């Protein structure tokens, strides 16, 4: 069973394929095979993303080889990448209609 997958060589993130504990040295499977290990700084749940490298604020973050959002705070290598530190460039800032 793989720990994690990286879809495109240009990606900044890997996706966990099972629940991974903090401090685990994860070897993601990339498009060309095994990649360099990444030490997780926090637990990563299955389906969630972690940074493959240190990321500054304002980075156009790539998955599928395409930009899926912009980082809103610095993210350490092996850190959880999710709604708390990554913002959509497409979504409306006003939530649902009428709210």
């Amino acid at each position, binding site marked *: *069973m*793989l720990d994690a*997958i990286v*879809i495109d060589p240009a990606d900044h993130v890997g*996706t*966990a*394929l099972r629940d991974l504990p903090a401090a685990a040295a994860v070897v993601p*499977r990339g*498009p060309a095979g095994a990649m360099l290990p990444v030490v997780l700084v926090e637990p990563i*749940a*299955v*389906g*969630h*993303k972690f940074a493959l490298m240190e990321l500054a604020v304002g980075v156009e973050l790539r*998955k*599928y080889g*395409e*930009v*899926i*959002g912009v980082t809103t705070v610095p993210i350490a290598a092996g850190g959880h*990448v*999710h*709604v708390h530190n*990554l*913002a*959509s*460039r*497409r*979504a*409306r800032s*006003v*939530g*649902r*209609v*009428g709210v």
Partner: protein
Amino acid sequence: MTPAAPSFLGFERSDGRAGVRNHLVILSVTGLTGPTARRVGRVLPAAIVITHPFGSGLLGEDAVIQDRAIAGLASHPNVGALVVLGAEPSKVQAAVLAAEDRGRRVQGFSLADAGHDVLRLTDLAVRAGAASLRALSADRRIPLPASRLVLGLECGRSDPTSGLAANPLVGRLADRVLGQGGIAMIGETTEWLGAEHLLARRARTPEVAEAILDAAGRREAQALAAGLDLTGSNPSETNVRAGLTTIEEKSLGAIAKSGRAPIEGVLTYAEAPTAPGLWVMDAPAYAPESVTGFTAAGANLVLFTTGVGNGYVSALAPTLKISANAATVARLDLQLDIAADGVLAGEETLDVAADRAFETLLDVASGTLTFGEILGEGDEVIARFRASL
């Protein structure tokens, strides 16, 4: 030595299209004749029964779409012979002409032809259908190149494994068929939101790019007008819990089904592509409506990915169910045609999985049954957009 071009055993149609099945279809084009069509199907169980529940009183866009979709289903490449039933002679005649134009064996009967006697209508249809089944059974498959495949690409009940493996696998299958000169279609316009600029970047011409952005914008505005903010409420809370962060990420996972080919044009619902290549259909996302849009546009096969399982298949186009979720593969072993869980288990690469899946696709095109066909899960459901009179 170059390897032989991929091919399958199919039915050559006189209109130049290729059938991967040779069905007798009992097609009821009005709601009033649906029960008779189903009765005929019980007498002739080899027939595929398709019933359209509406009839008179459709307006504008719906009237146009209904006529176009019925004509597309009646002349579908997997239809070897057709019996059309309907209340009004004019609606029956329209479907009969559409099928005749493309060289299909077809007979049509209206309630007026049967003196408004449903038992007599049943008798007429059974006799016509029985004779057609005999004729169909004399047709033989011949080798045809993979360029004659027309794929509809669909996903339903997706989960994180869909975007990570199953949809990229389908993208590779689409690329292979397109590389041979075939056709593929994706639809589900709302699933482009957040990635519409990427689809637009793949457009063959600036006009096509503009049409893609317009279609996505129109669908988003329609939802807003109905009080639903698709880009404000997506990904959903369930998606976020599962690890999806932004609408871009969610949509990229969905459009991975389309592979990497340039996009030739934007089709309206049930509109047939006019040239080989990848096409996008501006259409509803609900699987029965979406898949029928593809079959009415001439798709002779459908590739359908699922995360947790989705049984819907086309009645006319064999539909290969594909999942990369190991639990789903184990649970639905008699409902999935291609298991891609090995990709996420590290047992095979996407390219190796695609080699295997492409062989399965060609086998199904040559006649191997899908589980959807075996279990009789198929239907055709033409989309509705507005009120009836």
